[in-house]
């Protein structure tokens, strides 16, 4: 049996910053999710054009110079919308402004991609719970090393899609590394697959899998843990 990680003031500070970055991303996802839910609740059929409020919520977050959000929006469950089987009402920060992501909705199209089985969509759909995907190379949206925060959107027990936000691993690291370094302990933040998101050890770099059993502390309600490294 591995001992749980003993928290000290330094690690408490790390948890605080992690929870703030993660909390901001999920708060945006929740706002978008609530808005989409109210659209679906208010009318029998929903079309792409009915999702206009999503950009109004995403834009201020994406264009805020202090914000850490790279992308945000709503991804519809297959056949949830009346006028497109697949749809991403998604916006990204690019060249100083929020830009709409163009979606090829024709399954035969060169740029079509069926997102139904991808973790950021599938896990909230299956579990009914919020989820953090990554770190992963996001070749669909950001084209960068990314963390994606998604929450399920349900209307009268029917899953209609996920609302979410992207944070680049670069941004996550910039926010958290100073206090991680200040702990004076060798620690890593890992996801539920034991993949390292960030550590303060050159022997345990982001993206690699931590195979050893080590003292760890699971951050409440999140698929993230803080692990004490021994070397």
């Amino acid at each position, binding site marked *: 049996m591995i001992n749980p990680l003993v928290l000290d003031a330094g690690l408490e500070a790390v948890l605080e910053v992690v929870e703030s970055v993660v909390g901001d991303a999920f708060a945006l996802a929740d706002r978008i999710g609530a808005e989409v839910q109210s659209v679906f609740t208010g009318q029998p059929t929903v079309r792409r054009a009915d999702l206009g409020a999503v950009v109004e919520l995403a834009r201020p977050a994406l264009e805020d110079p202090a914000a850490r959000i790279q992308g945000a929006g709503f991804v519809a469950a297959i056949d949830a919308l009346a006028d497109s089987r697949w749809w*991403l009402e*998604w916006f*990204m920060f*690019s*060249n100083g402004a929020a*830009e*709409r*992501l*163009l*979606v*090829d909705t024709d399954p035969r199209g*060169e*740029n*079509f*991609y069926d997102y139904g*089985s991808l*973790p950021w969509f599938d896990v909230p759909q299956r579990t009914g719970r919020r989820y953090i995907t990554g*770190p*992963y*190379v996001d*070749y*669909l*949206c950001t*084209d*960068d*090393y990314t963390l994606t925060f998604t929450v399920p959107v349900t209307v009268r027990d029917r899953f209609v899609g996920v609302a979410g936000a992207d944070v680049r691993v670069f941004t996550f690291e910039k926010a958290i590394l100073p206090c991680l370094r200040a702990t004076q302990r060798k620690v890593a933040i890992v996801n539920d*697959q034991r*993949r390292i998101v960030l550590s303060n050890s050159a022997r345990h770099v*982001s*993206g*690699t*899998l931590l195979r050893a059993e080590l003292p760890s502390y699971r951050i409440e309600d999140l698929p993230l843990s803080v692990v004490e490294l021994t070397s």
Partner: protein
Amino acid sequence: MPLRFYGSGAAAVFAPLETLSRSELVARRLTDAIALGLIPDAEQLPGESDLAGIFGVSTTTIREALSSLRLRGLIDTRRGRGGGSFVRAHEEISTAIVRDRLEELSLAQLRDLGDHYSAIAGTAARLAAERATSDDVERLTAVCDSLESAEGLGGRRRADAQFHIEVAATAQSTRLYRAEVSLQAEVGTLLWLAFGDDESHRRTVRSCRDVVAAIDRTDGEAARAAAEERVADSTARLIDLRLTLEDR
């Protein structure tokens, strides 16, 4: 500029262009798309300003590219209402393109291209084996399955490119992923136009399965060897084909 879902992941055909004459490169990408059947016969191309947006170039550049496609008989342009550029696909295009492309390359350049590709594909496969979770292996297996059932040159090239991009993504490396995308654009199309037959397709599927099996065993060296062997085999076949061009 608008951003595209699965933009770079779609590799080759509509990737942004960087070097050489821009209009030549646009013409090349459109020619590839037509030859691979991605833009079917009689299909209308997007308008000049839409194409300019997709490729990130000016409408003047698009006009030059379209004019060279017209000269080669690959498109028809009709004026007026309901007008635009329409694809004229024909059987011999693939052979002609492969010959043109290969003639531009020396044996030493082909060997060098193979060396570069081997470095990227081999390292991506080794790192993927070290860094893959069981979910990753499941996804790679699914991509292999869709490669196996893919039909037509365009469908097979796309599934093949997706497999290699997925391996680089499994390696957790943004740089290897970008290198793979640009190599797919450079050489992927050429390989599929030259060797798009059913037997080559079966060989490709087998080699992808070998890579996934090694990744599943977390055997980095075997994954690297399988990926490198496949590149070496493709390079040798391209060099053989290049040699036959000397026979005329």
